[in-house]
């Protein structure tokens, strides 16, 4: 592996590991209760007691960031899982069988792709109300088309290779060809698109929560914290700075990983 790639990989791994440690920490125990307010510590600055300072209600920002990372990671992971799973199913079926089913599903796919995903998510939330699980479903649906496209292209390529013809000639059923011979070959493509998708999901979740359509207050998520902090951004920038930095780091880590994986 060349040197620059190695540096990218190691930096990516370290940053991602840090973010995951924060998420796990947020799952187990936080230094302070992220919901309890302390009026005496309102807008407290960075100190040993409160490493990231406190927000407008005197809640410890560090604890809230930990829980926020946990929430954001959970939502993004679910979104990517839904998108990748259904996208793979749709992509494989359409790519492998072709015909009218392919035309039909791919036109729906094109239509979905033509919508901005935030708008699409807004529609779903408008129909089912806002909340964490509605957000997961909404973004999950919005993430299907890109996965379906990537998988379909790859399946189309593999389907016409001779070894698929060869196993067809050994009498393998379509199901066996897809599951045993085609899907394992999608691994690398899927892995890198999952990482890129995860990035997009983090951003989309932050965006939706910022717009007030994701996690409901008082629960923290990184986007939610940003949107709450913007009112006080000139009096107390800390509350906006730290969640922002963590989002940036998450994206950076995964981007570096995504660059090195699958190439």
């Amino acid at each position: 592996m060349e040197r620059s790639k190695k540096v990218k990989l190691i930096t990516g791994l370290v940053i991602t590991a840090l973010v995951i440690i924060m998420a796990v920490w947020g799952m187990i125990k936080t230094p302070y209760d992220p919901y309890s307010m302390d009026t005496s510590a309102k807008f407290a600055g960075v100190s040993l007691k409160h490493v990231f300072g406190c927000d407008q209600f005197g809640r410890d920002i560090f604890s809230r960031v930990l829980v926020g990372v946990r929430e954001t990671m959970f939502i993004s992971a679910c979104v990517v899982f839904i998108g990748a799973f259904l996208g793979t199913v749709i992509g494989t079926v359409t790519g492998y069988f072709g015909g009218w089913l392919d035309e039909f599903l791919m036109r729906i796919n094109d239509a979905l792709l033509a919508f901005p995903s935030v708008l699409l998510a807004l529609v779903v939330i408008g129909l089912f109300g806002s909340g964490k699980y509605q957000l997961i479903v909404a973004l999950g649906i919005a993430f299907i088309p890109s996965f379906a496209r990537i998988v379909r292209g790859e399946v189309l390529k593999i389907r016409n290779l001779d070894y698929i013809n060869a196993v067809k000639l050994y009498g393998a059923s379509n199901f066996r060809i897809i599951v045993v011979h085609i899907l394992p070959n999608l691994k690398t493509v899927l892995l890198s698109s999952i990482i890129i998708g995860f990035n997009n999901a983090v951003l989309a979740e932050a965006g939706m929560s910022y717009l007030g359509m994701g996690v409901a207050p008082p629960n923290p998520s990184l986007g939610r914290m940003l949107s709450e902090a913007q009112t006080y951004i000139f009096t107390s920038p800390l509350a906006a700075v730290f969640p922002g930095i963590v989002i940036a780091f998450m994206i950076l880590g995964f981007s570096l990983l995504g660059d090195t994986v699958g190439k």
Partner: protein
Amino acid sequence: MMLKVEDLCIKIHDKNSTETVVKDVDFTMKRGDILGIVGESGSGKTMSALAIAGLLSRHNMEKSGNIIFEDINLLNCSRKVLRKIQGSEISMIFQEPLNSLNPIKKIGWQVEEGLKIHTTMERLERKERALKALKDVELDNPEAVYNSYPHELSGGMRQRVMIASAMIVSPKLLIADEPTTALDVTIQAQIVELLKKINKERGTAILFISHDLSLVNTLCENVLVMKDGLVVESGKCADIFDNPREAYTKGLIEAIPHNPFYNGKVI
């Protein structure tokens, strides 16, 4: 007759135009026959072979005529029957050994595929059979090949592996679609020898498709010459090479690079 192809026509429908790629192809094969099909690129040899193997897709293509294999018409039998025949009676090896093996599975696993689908053998028994098949195609170290991945093998070895996995189900007909085109000359000769041996020892009929007339001449008894989807000439290899009737066949024979040491004879 084991295989009887009658009036085979293949038309490909594109958006606006229809193109006939194979026209009225007729031929028969007995058990143990070796039939060569020669012709330039685009003459319809591969399409005919894929049609016999049942590998042509069922959309946007129109096939007429009959392909009768052991009294079953492959062109209009049910998918289930076709798959049964495909697995155990007809096998095929392809032009590009690079693409004809799955890059992420071990060789042994792939050679066993036919057995996995068609028999209820135990793992160890299958392994034994696969090793024997690899040995039969004259690979030096079957055990090592069994445990390697396709990218670790050379082109010639991969083609041998393909032959092994095609022959593991003991088919009656082996279709070889330009199996030596991607290989260098010495390996070509070895592969042809191997096919000859398989034909002699096991009585497998071979449909050998090539544009290399000298290879066809060394391997086949009978030959079909195809051009633009039509069979222009057919008969015994020796007759056709000695006195070709069609101008096209003459052209093909003249196009063979001659070796001065053989006095211009086709070897």
